[in-house]
C-alpha cells in the first residue's frame, strides 16, 4: 500500500491504496465518488472520463500513483466550476433539456468531454464536436441529441 495525495473537486485527499490500483477504483471504492462509471475497462468507451490537471483522461487506464499531486475533477465537481453554489453546470442543464441523457451511463463522461472540448473550441463545429466526443460511446441516444446539447451549451456560454 502507498499513500497517495491529490486534490479532488477542490478538496485535498489522501488515500492508502496499491499504487497500481486504477484511479477509477480509487474514486469509486475509496472516495465513494461513483459518478465515473466502468464501461469497458480498456480505454474504449470513455464512461470513466475525468479531468486530470485539466486534461480529459480515462481513469480506468491511470494507476493511482500517477495521480500523486494531481488536480482531479470528476462529474461530482463539475457544477461548482461554473459558480460556487451551482447545482447543475450549464452543460448538464443542456443535456437535460435536449434529451442528451437516457440511461445515464455515458453521461458523466460525455459532460466532462464536452467541458474539455468547449475550453479548447468555445464555438465548435459539428466535426469538432464529433472528434471531441469520439472516445465516448453511447448505447442509447444515437448521439444526435448529445450533439444538440453540446451546441446549445456552446451558444449559451458565448452569446
Amino acid at each position: 500500500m502507498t499513500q497517495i495525495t491529490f486534490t479532488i473537486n477542490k478538496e485535498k485527499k489522501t488515500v492508502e491504496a496499491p499504487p497500481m490500483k486504477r484511479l477509477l477504483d480509487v474514486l469509486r471504492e475509496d472516495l465513494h465518488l461513483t459518478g465515473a462509471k466502468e464501461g469497458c475497462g480498456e480505454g474504449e468507451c470513455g464512461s470513466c472520463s475525468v479531468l486530470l490537471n485539466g486534461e480529459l483522461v480515462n481513469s480506468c487506464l491511470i494507476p493511482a500513483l500517477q495521480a500523486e499531486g494531481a488536480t482531479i475533477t470528476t462529474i461530482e465537481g463539475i457544477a461548482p466550476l461554473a459558480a460556487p453554489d451551482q447545482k447543475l453546470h450549464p452543460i448538464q442543464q443542456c443535456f437535460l433539456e435536449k434529451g442528451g441523457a437516457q440511461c445515464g451511463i455515458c453521461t458523466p463522461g460525455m459532460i466532462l468531454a464536452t467541458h474539455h472540448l468547449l475550453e479548447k473550441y468555445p464555438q465548435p463545429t459539428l466535426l469538432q464536436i464529433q472528434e471531441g466526443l469520439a472516445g465516448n460511446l453511447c448505447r442509447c441516444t444515437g448521439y444526435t441529441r448529445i450533439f444538440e446539447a453540446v451546441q446549445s451549451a456552446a451558444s449559451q456560454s458565448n452569446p
Partner: protein
Amino acid sequence: MRSNASHYDLIAPATLDAVLEILAAEPGHYTPIAGGTEIMVALGAGRLAQKNLVSINQIKELRFIETTPSQLIIGSGTTFTDIRNSAIIQSDFPLLTQAASWTGSIANQNRGTLGGNIVNGSPAADSPPALLAYEATLTLISTRGTRQMPYADFHLGYKKTALAPDELIQSITLKRIFTGYIPYARKVGTRNAQAISKVAIAALALIQDDTLEDIRIGAASLRDRPSRLTATERTLRGQTITQDTIVTLISQARATLTTEAHPIDDIRSTAKYRAAVAANLLEEFLHSLMNP
C-alpha cells in the same frame, strides 16, 4: 479476468537518473510505464506479466520538443496531444501530426506517448510509418550512457526491439530536410477514432521536372513489424511521372509492393484485403502527385 492490482508494484522516482539506476540495478526486473495506455489495458485484461513497474510519466526531462535550425528532437514522453499542438511539427513533419491525430481518442492522445507507441512495437501502430518515412534516429539512454540508432533498425521482429532491459528511449530526432516534399497519409480502419488500422501508409515524394527525385513509403500492418517499402521505392525513384507514364508506373509499383508486403490474417482483416488495399493506397498516392 481482471488482475488484482495489489499483486503489482509501481514506483515513481523523481528524476531520470533515479529511474535509470533502478533499471540498471537488476535489468528486466522493472518495466517502465509512461502514459499507461498499453500497460493498463494489459492489466485490465489480466495479461500483464511484468509485476514491477517504474513510472516515467512524471519525468519532465523526457517530455519536450526542441527545435534547432537543422533538426527537431522529440522527448520520448511527449504525448500525442503535445505533438498535435506543435506548430513546427505541423509545418515540417505533417505526417507525424496526422498520425498523432488518429491515435485513439482525445483522452488517449492526452496520455499516450510517442516513446510508448514505438517500444510497444505493434506492426499496426500509427506513428512508426511516419517516423520511417522521415528516417528518424532514436537516442537510447541507460546508466551506461547514450547511443543512437536509425529507427529503421529498432524493430527486430514481431514485438521484438533492440532496446536493452536497462534502457529507455530518451528522444527521437528528425532532420528538417523535407521542404518541398509532398506528404500522403491514409489509415484504413473501421472508424477514425479508436480503431487500430487494418492498413496504413505514410509517404513522401519529391518531384522535380516531372521526375520522382525521392520517394519514401512507411507502412503499418504489411509485415510483422512497422516497415518501409524499400523495393517499391526503388522501382519508383528516378522515374518520370507524367500523364503518359503514370499507368505503367502504377502497375510496376503495385507489382513490387505485392512481392514485398507480407500481411497476415487476424481479427481486424485478412492478408488478401490488406495487400489489395495497400496497393490501392499506393496508387492513390501516385495519382495525388500528378496534381499536387
